[in-house]
């Protein structure tokens, strides 16, 4: 352990004295402290801060990834410049040397991330105080959505209902002779199609119609001064001339709480978030929301829940609630700073993997080859999702098929080691003011930081163990 620590310490002091690290640090500082004065966003303070957070965190993530890969140069340098002769003739097991290097790089990364995080946090608050909010909305967005870590509760789709309805319709159609004598009807496919239709029609709210959403487990602070946010996106089939979707919301179960109502006029096909009092959530942590596609009476008053009304004459727009989770409820669960720490932790896990990767490559290759190899893997990891999808479709008949199957198997094994970086990228979640869950961080730690990093580190130690350190690698 003392040896690992000695090597790690040495690695950190090397990194600090290395010009390349200095270069990266200066670049980071320039980005963090210079960016806010260049990028002003959409004119609102909240927009400016969000833009700053996206750019600075993405830049930190990318620059640190490159820096980490470059720092593994230390190992190949020590091989080429033969300092390894001194090290390997000390009572220093080779695996401890590799581990020490890795630990040193990760330690340095952690230090830099801490600095960058402090800088970003300070700068975000600086923008908030130096620039007055444009309006009340901006001010509210700042506290509710920017300097916030909100938990997101998605509405559960009544999938069972869809399934049952689809079956019923299928049976009815069969009885009615809808399919005729066609023997080629695939029951499964047909039901799946009908289920989709059911879901679509559920998402669709006809003029004057109502949709009710029930959220369970909304464990927010229900104090009077607290708010929760509702996020939704609506499309109006038949394009509305002013591109505005009008809706009426009744929030809170009238049997349990004092409901809150509001009329919304929101741009078509965009996400919208609005705040309502947290008191609308019932004591049993349920929240009922009614969404109404209201129609206007002749005197421009909304007419509610009147299905018998001849709505066609009034306003013939059908509203469809679009994304997979049509309505989301968000409420604050943590602080901005805590959320930032979790984002940085996820970045650090990524760097842990990259440090192991760079070292593993450096144990076998000279620096230029090693950096090329690790950069390739890094890029693959960033596009891991697409690659994973594409190999699903491998598979053909005969010899070619066998070849493909073998190839696919190898690919799958490799892909298991190559992490899926985007799935652990929490920057956008953070910038949206949504909570980066501890679960997510733990998953990142487990998968990226322990399993995949562990495999690569093990490979690095093994390769280095069997390597003759006096061998010339060109």
């Amino acid at each position, binding site marked *: 352990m*003392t040896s690992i620590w*000695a090597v790690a310490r040495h690695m950190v002091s090397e990194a600090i004295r290395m010009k390349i690290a200095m270069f990266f640090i200066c670049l980071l500082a320039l980005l963090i402290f210079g960016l806010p004065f260049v990028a002003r966003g959409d004119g609102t303070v909240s927009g400016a801060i969000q833009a700053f957070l996206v750019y600075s965190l993405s830049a930190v993530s990318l620059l640190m990834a490159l820096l980490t890969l470059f720092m593994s140069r230390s190992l190949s340098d020590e091989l080429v410049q033969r300092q390894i*002769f*001194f090290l390997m003739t000390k009572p220093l097991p080779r695996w401890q040397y590799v581990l020490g290097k890795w630990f040193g790089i990760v330690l340095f990364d952690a230090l830099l991330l801490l600095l960058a995080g402090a800088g970003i946090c300070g700068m975000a608050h600086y923008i908030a105080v130096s620039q007055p909010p444009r309006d009340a909305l901006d001010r509210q967005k700042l506290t509710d959505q920017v300097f916030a870590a909100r938990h997101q509760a998605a509405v559960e789709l009544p999938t069972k209902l869809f399934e049952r309805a689809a079956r019923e319709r299928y049976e009815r159609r069969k009885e009615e002779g809808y399919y005729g004598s066609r023997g080629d009807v695939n029951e499964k496919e047909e039901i799946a199609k009908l289920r989709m239709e059911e879901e679509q029609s559920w998402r669709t709210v006809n003029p004057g119609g109502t949709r009710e959403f029930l959220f369970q487990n909304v464990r927010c602070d229900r104090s009077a001064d607290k708010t929760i946010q509702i996020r939704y996106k609506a499309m109006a089939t038949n394009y509305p001339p002013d591109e505005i979707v009008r809706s009426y919301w009744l929030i809170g179960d009238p049997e349990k709480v004092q409901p809150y109502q509001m009329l919304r006029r929101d741009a078509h096909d965009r996400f919208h978030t609005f705040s309502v009092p947290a008191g609308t959530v019932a004591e049993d942590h349920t929240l009922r929301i009614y969404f109404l596609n209201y129609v206007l009476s002749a005197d421009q008053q909304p007419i509610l829940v009147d299905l018998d009304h001849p709505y066609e004459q009034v306003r013939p727009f059908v509203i469809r609630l679009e994304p997979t989770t049509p309505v989301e409820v968000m409420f604050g669960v943590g602080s901005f700073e805590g959320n930032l720490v979790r984002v940085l932790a996820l970045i650090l896990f990524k760097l842990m993997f990259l440090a192991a990767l760079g070292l593993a490559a450096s144990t076998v290759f000279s620096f230029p080859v090693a950096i090329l190899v690790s950069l390739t893997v890094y890029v693959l990891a960033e596009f891991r999702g697409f690659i994973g999808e594409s190999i699903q479709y491998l598979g053909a008949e005969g010899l070619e098929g066998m070849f493909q199957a073998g190839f696919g198997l190898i690919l799958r094994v490799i892909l298991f080691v190559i992490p899926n970086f985007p799935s652990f990228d929490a920057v956008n979640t953070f910038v949206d003011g949504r909570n980066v869950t501890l679960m997510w961080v733990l998953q990142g730690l487990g998968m990226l930081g322990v399993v995949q990093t562990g495999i690569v580190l093990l490979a690095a130690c093994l390769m280095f163990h069997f390597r003759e*350190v*006096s061998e010339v690698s060109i």
Partner: protein
Amino acid sequence: MIIPVVQTVGLTKLFKDFWRRAKVEAVKNLNLEIHRGEVFGLLGPNGSGKSTTIKMLLGLLYPTRGQIAVFGRAPTDVATKARIGFLPEESYLYRFLNARETLDYYGRLFHLPSHVRRERTERLLEMVGLKHEARRRLGEYSKGMARRIGLAQALINDPDFLILDEPTTGLDPIGTRQIKDLIRELGNRGKTILLSSHLLADVEDVCDRVSILYGGQQRQGGRVKELLRQTERTQIIAPRLAPETIERIRNVIRLEEEKDLIEVSSPAERLETIFLRIVHEAQVANVATSGARASGAMPDFLGPRDEGEALVDELVRAADRRVPEPGPVEVAEVPAAPTGPADDVLESLLAREPEPVRDGSEAEEEKPAPPAGPREAIEADRSVIDSLLSEPDKRSDHRD
């Protein structure tokens, strides 16, 4: 049974290329045994496999065939490393650390507690004479200074077994002398030392046993004293004598034994004799080597003969004379210096005293005295060093 510090049996190292084809056989079937408390010398021309052998003993290279035991264990065993100090043939130091940090780092790797590290660092820096330069980055150090740090790091763990690969390269005469004294002193304290060197005089001075390698094979090995006893000569060692005394001794020998004194000098050159003979024999026998062979004739393109070359000639001849039994001397064909009016014109233009035109044979006879005869210069140097070190000469009275 006492376990030898180092034992190799049939040690062989083949360097292979990328396609695993054998390329170089650097060490062939080497059997070494180094015992506790011994100072063992590994000799051989460039590329004869000395460093390769040492690297295998340290686990930096893996043998192709054969066995190695260091303190009775495999060379890759890290436990034995705590008892070993190693100075590689070049000092590969961290340019960004200073001397103190470097020694501290290596001390940490030996798990030395911090007060021990601090104390030993200071003592070693003092020993190698770099205490006042200890705050500078090693990247700024000269070759010899770096070498001294290399030596200091080899001693930080107070090793039982010290491996020195050409310890004196790059060192000034005082440093060389200090290393020799250090080796002798450590030997006296019961440490085992393996050193490789080209400086045969040094090896002869400090080593108990030597092994002479050529082409990766041992050509000759054994106790230095026994190797040297083959010569039919008697050597008288005395404190510095006045020239008149030497003349009188010479006369005594002439009278009593009807022989002449062969030479009056330090006994340093005699291992050299053996070494040269062994290497020469190996070359005549066409022993395969992947290292350096005898150097050939001077290439013709190297400019015309001039005063400078005459001086070099003189120096070479002086050095040759110090070898009593040289191998067959390869005579380099040197083109005669171009002579003619052109030269004269040049010389008169440069307004110098025109030199008499000489041909090659004349030049060999003549001795245009250089500032000081090279021989005298060397002798003078030695006395300077001796007086600088001002220590009683204890060259021969060590381990008997």
